């Protein structure tokens, strides 16, 4: 990997500087005023935060709304009050009572009350309403939502669910106004963007930009510091990078992250920015179809897992920014993840790969003595095709001859959803919450929506279910460790290649911004201020 030594050390230095600056800034007094500029990687089109799922929608609307609770802008691993000033849990863990702030007003002047919370969550939890983020997370665990008086809301759960608070704190579970939902039916239009958040929705020029302005009546006195936030809609890496270099955007903490080459270029062009590497809570997976030959046969699935050189993929396709092999990333879920030292010694992951390659070859030969010919699918999005090339070369080493079938994005999703593939070389999946259960409910359980390979292991379902409902944190951790070890020992149809990281930058002027543990959270900028 070629990188100018001076730039590489500059990047390392930058990481140190960020930490120091963060410490120093904690002493400075926030300054009021200024407009933060950043960008959205696409045009949102539809703005309904309850119904949509792309990050662009979250970015466009985050500062306009508040949730019941939120991830702390100062320390994103903690959950702190938002519209609910405090909450209590019943001893059996099945009833959560949120006590709401009083005197909060919607941006159009109407008063906020528990009825709005009930209306929002009734909508999200409605079985006929498509809510792929908040709805998908909460529907399995929530039985009902009731407004007890004007300032109290109660959630009754189907079982004591440990991830519940984390899910409600997600920025997808925002509270919308009852009267707005009644008036417009949905939240897709700019006119319906009435929230209680630190910013008002000022304007949306399709394909161009989205702008927020300060909410002078925000219920937290003294916030926000900024006069407004402007996001330009910039499609394509070169345009985004050019804007960063020209100083037109102050922040790059979104998807897609910068590539190493772009980060180096930016560092050369601007010395007044901090560049850092961070996780984007996204896992890079390879899928096999467990319902069809050849990968209905677990031996062949194991062969692919043994043959895959995850470290090479991270080095070449992710430019070194990734955590190879892990099913859960310790940086994101803490000690729920198996220690990396254990994971990286497992077959398939250990280096050098000679033993694993030999075994993989034997497995392939046992069932296909003259080698195996397959078609490998990939969507032509991002650098998936480049990753696929590397995977193809690796598979060739064990006697699997693959040809590439590339799909346009939409057609690819349609094919994957229908199980119309043999092997998917690369497909990323972002986690919506920092709780370990999302990985299993979304990818590894039998009925999981992203379980494209339709792999079914009853033990996995059982362990995941128990872990979801286990109230004790220690016991949960044991269950997740058992679950991870079980999956690694088996022949899953979804092989974790790496947790993806990337490079981001922040203008030194931007203070008070801490990236959250998921890409979706902490885009409200409520505590961000600009130095002069």
């Amino acid at each position, binding site marked *: *990997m*070629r990188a100018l030594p001076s730039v590489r050390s500059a990047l390392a230095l930058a990481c140190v500087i960020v930490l120091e600056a963060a410490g120093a800034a904690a002493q400075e007094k926030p300054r009021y005023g200024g407009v933060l500029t950043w960008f959205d990687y696409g045009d949102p089109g539809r703005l309904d935060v309850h119904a949509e799922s792309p990050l662009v929608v979250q970015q466009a609307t985050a500062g306009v709304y508040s949730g019941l609770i939120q991830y702390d802008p100062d320390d994103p691993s903690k959950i702190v009050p938002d519209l609910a000033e405090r909450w209590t849990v019943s001893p059996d863990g099945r009833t959560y009572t949120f006590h709401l702030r009083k005197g909060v007003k919607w941006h159009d002047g109407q008063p906020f009350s528990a009825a709005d919370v009930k209306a929002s969550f009734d909508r999200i939890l409605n079985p006929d309403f498509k809510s792929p983020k908040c709805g998908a997370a909460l529907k399995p665990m929530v039985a009902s939502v009731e407004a007890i008086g004007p300032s109290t809301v109660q959630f009754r759960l189907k079982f004591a669910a440990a991830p519940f608070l984390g899910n409600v704190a997600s920025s997808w579970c925002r509270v919308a106004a009852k009267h707005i939902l009644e008036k417009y039916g949905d939240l897709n239009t700019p006119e319906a963007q009435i929230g209680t958040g630190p910013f008002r929705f000022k304007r949306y020029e399709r394909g161009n930009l989205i702008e927020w302005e300060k909410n002078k009546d925000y219920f937290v006195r003294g916030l926000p510091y900024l006069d407004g936030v402007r996001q330009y809609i910039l499609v*394509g*890496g*070169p345009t985004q*990078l050019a804007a960063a270099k020209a100083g037109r955007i102050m922040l790059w903490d979104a998807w897609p992250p910068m590539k190493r*080459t772009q980060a*180096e*270029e930016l560092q050369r062009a601007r010395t007044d920015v901090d560049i850092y590497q961070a996780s984007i809570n996204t896992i890079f997976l390879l899928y096999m179809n467990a319902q069809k030959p050849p990968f209905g046969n677990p031996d062949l699935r194991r062969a692919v897992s043994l043959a895959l050189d995850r470290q090479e993929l991270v080095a*070449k*396709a992710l430019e070194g920014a990734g955590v190879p092999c892990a099913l859960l990333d310790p940086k994101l879920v803490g000690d729920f993840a198996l220690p990396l030292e254990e994971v990286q010694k497992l077959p398939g992951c250990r280096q050098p790969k000679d033993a694993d390659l030999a075994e993989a070859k034997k497995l392939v030969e046992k069932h296909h003595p003259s080698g195996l010919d397959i078609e490998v699918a990939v969507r*032509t999005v991002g*650098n998936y*095709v*480049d990753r*696929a*090339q*590397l995977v*193809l*070369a690796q598979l060739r080493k064990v006697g699997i001859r693959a040809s*590439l*079938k*590339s*799909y*346009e994005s939409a*057609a690819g999703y349609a094919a994957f959803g229908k199980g119309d593939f043999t092997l998917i070389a690369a497909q990323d999946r972002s986690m919506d919450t920092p709780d370990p259960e999302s990985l299993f409910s979304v990818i590894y359980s039998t009925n999981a929506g992203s379980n494209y390979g339709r792999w079914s292991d009853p033990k996995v379902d059982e362990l995941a279910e128990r872990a979801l409902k286990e109230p004790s944190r220690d016991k949960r951790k044991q269950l997740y460790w058992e679950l991870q070890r079980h999956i690694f020992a088996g022949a899953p149809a979804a092989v974790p290649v790496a947790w993806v990281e990337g490079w981001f930058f922040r203008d030194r002027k931007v203070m008070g911004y801490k990236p959250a543990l998921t890409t979706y959270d902490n885009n409200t900028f409520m505590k961000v201020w600009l130095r002069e």
Partner: protein
Amino acid sequence: MRGALSGLGRFAARQPLGAVGAVLVLILIATAMLAPRLAPHGPKEAAFAPYLPPSAEFPLGTDQIGRDVLSRVIWGARLSLYVGLASVVFGVTLGWLWGVVSAYVGGVADTASQRVVDALMALPPIILALSLMAALGQSVNNVILALTILLTPTASRTLRSLALSIRESPYVEAARAVGCPTWRVIALHVLPNTFATYIVLVTVNVSYAIVVEASLSFLGLGAPPDEPSWGAMLTAGTQAMEPAPWMFMFPGLAISLTVFGLNLLGDAVRDLTDPHLRGGLG
């Protein structure tokens, strides 16, 4: 042999630009045919360090996953030539048959089929190609199919008008007066006389086909992205325009030189064979 050489010499003298074009086209064909020998590495071999600038070892540098750009450009000649020639030969031949038959059958069938041609031509070509590729799926053969569908209508239109004007000519009138059946008239009189136009259309459209294929790749719906398509290389190069300008420049130059040579040659052929179609170098 001497006669052929002196013939070529005369061609070069009368159409100097055409001769230049012919040389360029010959280089393209030679590169395409000799690709396995000429290219130092395979087109999909991602074995090297990425983003290396041009050097002695990699004269045109390497791309974003460490493939040799020179090898890919050479192999790209083969792909472009294959796609360009196949789609144009199919497209213009189909158009030829369609146009000539339509001209002779005449009547309602002729009017109806020409309306279909009009309707196809009214659609913006890139969108038509894009939708076709999305519907068919990305493969080299589907690119050829999509391009064929794109080229057939215009070819049929041109050849139909030509066929109609031949129909009015004295020879054909005489033949019909004598009682020659239509198919014989077509085979013996019309087809040979449209042959020159056919050749001109082929040479002119090969460059168009190559450019459309590259545009499709640029928009993400061309040949599968791992294939060494010049257009796909151009697209990938735009993503790394500043750190690695060699990634987009060389494939772009390759396309440009190819199209340049084909245009020059096509113009020269047109001037020589069919002065009525002179729109070119005169």
